């Protein structure tokens, strides 16, 4: 079984984002990067499938040189080899999906896993777009996955419940929290990761669909207000919550 996992290298959720002077990038100083959390579920699922059925897990990431750190983490968790598709700066999701699809096709991967979204740009589109380009089936926001021969039975998280769907290989799956418990990379895995290959090539992005004009920070939140300090403030607090904040 040939499995591909697409991963992205994203700023840590606890990072304080500051926008660079060119308004095209964030300030890099003091920003630590991590493996996109949803991609961890994708990697874990790929490793479980490999442990059960054998085969190879290839990790693909589009990004700059530093994305190799994230590929290395996936290799340390147990993936077999990495591919870095080199890009420079902002890439629109459709172009990204195209580059990933190109690489997946050349690998002949029949199962493709990725996170349901990357927590930096939050587009939630790469899996669907890649599936469409590849002509594969697609299940998004997946919380349970069973693959039996070429039959795929997956559970998706939907508003207020779950949906069970069936499709067949080849397939692109986007992973949601709850799919599994991602393993920590063991020290042995980390030591072995440095001997696993990471191929580098230019990303085949093709036509540009969207360009980035400007990055902005959200407008500042209104400061908090103290209504009172004892129970006499409750009626006014309830009124404001109902009429102004409209939360009750």
């Amino acid at each position: 079984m040939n499995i591909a996992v697409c991963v992205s290298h994203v700023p840590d959720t606890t990072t304080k984002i500051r926008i660079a002077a060119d308004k095209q990038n964030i300030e890099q100083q003091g920003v630590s990067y991590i493996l996109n959390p949803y991609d961890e579920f994708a990697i874990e699922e790929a490793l479980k499938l490999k442990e059960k059925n054998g085969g190879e897990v290839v990790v693909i990431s589009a990004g700059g040189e530093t994305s190799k750190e994230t590929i290395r983490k996936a290799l340390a968790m147990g993936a077999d080899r990495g591919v870095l598709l080199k890009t420079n700066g902002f890439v629109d999701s459709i172009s990204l999906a195209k580059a990933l699809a190109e690489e997946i096709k050349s690998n002949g991967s029949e199962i493709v896993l990725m996170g349901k979204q990357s927590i930096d740009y939050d587009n939630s589109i790469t899996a669907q777009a890649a599936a469409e380009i590849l002509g594969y089936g697609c299940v998004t926001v997946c919380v349970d996955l069973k693959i039996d021969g070429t039959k795929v039975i997956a559970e998706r998280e939907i508003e207020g419940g779950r949906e069970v769907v069936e499709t067949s290989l080849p397939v692109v799956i986007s992973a949601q929290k709850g799919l599994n418990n991602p393993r920590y990379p063991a020290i042995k895995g980390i030591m072995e990761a440095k001997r696993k290959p990471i191929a580098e090539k230019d990303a085949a992005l093709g036509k540009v669909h969207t360009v980035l004009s400007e990055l902005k920070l959200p407008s500042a939140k209104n400061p908090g207000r103290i209504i009172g300090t004892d129970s006499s403030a409750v009626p006014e607090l309830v009124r404001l919550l109902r009429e102004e904040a409209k939360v009750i």
Partner: protein
Amino acid sequence: MSKFSGVDYFNIDGLLSEEEILIRETVRDFVESEIIPIIEEYARKGEFPMHLVGKMAELGLFGANLPSEYGGSDMNNVAYGLVMQELERGDSGIRSFVSVQSALVMYPIFTFGSKEQKRYWLPRLAKGEKIGCFGLTEPDYGSNPGGMVTKAEKTEGGYILNGAKMWITNGTIADVAVVWAKLDGRVKGFLVEKGMKGFTAPEMKGKHSLRASVTSELVFDNVFVPESNLLPNSDGLKSPLMCLNQARYGIAWGVVGSMMACYHSSLTYAQSRVQFGKPIAGFQMTQQKLVYMVTEITKSQLMNLQLGRLKDSGQLRFQQVSMAKRNNCDIALDIARVAREIHGANGILDEYPVMRHAANLESVKTYEGTHEMHTLIVGEDITGLPAFN
């Protein structure tokens, strides 16, 4: 409290390899999600969280710097140090468990053991299926272990052990004890196994420090130890001292984790605690305390990194380890006390990690050679004059 993302004022990460950083991050995540949420409860109960043993083994934390042939990962000493640092940011007791298992049990079996001993014990200890302890200290011989009175006498097919050890980390929960005893007046190492007739390991109760770690007595009442359980290549006091040198190296790194925990808690607290209309971090005296902490952390980090590079290149001298153990434990304890001051009354609560670290560090400053002993070791090294007796 805001998420901990390390203390690196001097961009020391730039001196680390990608793999060293990844190992540290992995252990940091593990500590954040598996140790910190439960540790106060275990410390309060005075129990070691046994369920962590399997998880730590899965991560590969036991004997990770030993060759993979014996269940290790060929990890270098800087990475080993970073593992200790991250674990001790969680708790000194957990770091102690790993130190004992790796540096004081697996290391001596690897270094002084027979092929059979290595083949049997090391993979099992690495997998956490077996737990080990290290018995050197005795009720009447602490700083002066050479005076030990536990003795072994040759008998048919093995040895008869008599005596007692005290203050032994993991003693009660251990499957195997690396015990140092005198055979014809010369110190030798023995593997004493749980259940051997005449061997008991009662737990010591009433500790105000290292409460999440098991500390025990080991009592040997005519214990028969087969010939195959003598560590054949151990010879003289130098052998246990070699083990201690490994463990002290880990402690020098470990306590930086305690420093970081106390500093991080202090910084976050001082930025949010308002008195006289502004955060206490805005007062000069608080800033002085915080600056003291981060400066000392940076100094210790640099000291440790060079210590590790020396160890990896085979140039490390034990006196250098003594200097780092001595300095870092002393500073860590001081930082914990200053952190308690910054937290005011809150500093005494177990809602914050400060008091637990402060109490733990009292043990850490004492075990593996007291502050004074390490002073005398470095003192002798620079003056050429021993001042031990």
